[in-house]
């Protein structure tokens, strides 16, 4: 009897390159991830139009002001302590940029005191964090 041997065709998509693709994606994410270290205070930022992106996140420190408290690196600070904290950061990183995250409703009094503390510490480069105004 003539039986045609059933031809077994196994088709396989070569998946040998899959790990390579995955590694590529992985390296991308490893490079772009900056682990978030501090939560700060709940703050509603004011809005503005002429805002600029912060150039380098590594040299940035955040000061949160929500009317009642001032927080830096998740530590609640008195106004008088701000200059010492900022000064030690400035010694560690001369290119320090201080990002001020103030709630919209805080009063200028607080901000002025923080300004004076920053000037005393020598941290002159600051950035007022704002949301983009939807105009």
């Amino acid at each position, binding site marked *: 009897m003539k039986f045609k041997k059933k031809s077994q065709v196994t088709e396989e998509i070569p*998946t040998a390159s*899959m*790990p390579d693709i*995955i*590694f590529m*994606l*992985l390296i991308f*994410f*490893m490079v*772009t*991830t*900056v*682990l*978030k270290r501090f939560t700060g205070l709940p703050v509603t930022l*004011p*809005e*503005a*139009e*002429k*805002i*600029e*992106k*912060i150039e380098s*996140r590594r040299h*940035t420190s955040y000061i949160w002001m929500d009317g009642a408290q001032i927080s830096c690196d998740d530590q609640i600070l008195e106004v008088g302590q701000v200059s010492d904290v900022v000064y030690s950061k400035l010694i560690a990183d001369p290119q320090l940029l201080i*990002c*001020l995250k*103030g*709630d*919209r*409703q*805080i*009063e*200028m*009094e607080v*901000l*002025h005191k923080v*300004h*004076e503390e*920053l*000037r*005393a510490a*020598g*941290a*002159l*480069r*600051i*950035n*007022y*964090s*704002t*949301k*983009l*105004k939807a105009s």
Partner: protein
Amino acid sequence: MLVDKKKDREIVIPTSSMADIAFILLIFFLVTTTMNTDKGIPMVLPPPGQTKEVPKKNICNILVNSQGDVLLGNEPIQIPNIKTELERRMAENENLIISVKTDLKTSYDYFIAVLDQVKMTGSTRVSIAEPE
């Protein structure tokens, strides 16, 4: 012949699980990556103890009170109009220094709105006066 038949077996370390390990690491990074969208208005503060004498005609005073009313050089003005008015004044006087002074109780929101308008004019001579 007493020659060992060449063993045809290849020794292979199974690398099939390498992709699984890579997937797990990838998912970890997918979950922890945050794209930083921090943006804001940059400013450079003057070093402490610096007071420079400036002729009065080169200063344009912007005063903001606690209710958010703005006086530009003694004229009341609405915040969105500050930019055009400043540009007009800057065209007349190149050396114009813009000074923003707020009340102690002025809200930060108004300050940022005024600062935003000032920054939009493109002027680099901005001074933040001590609030009173």
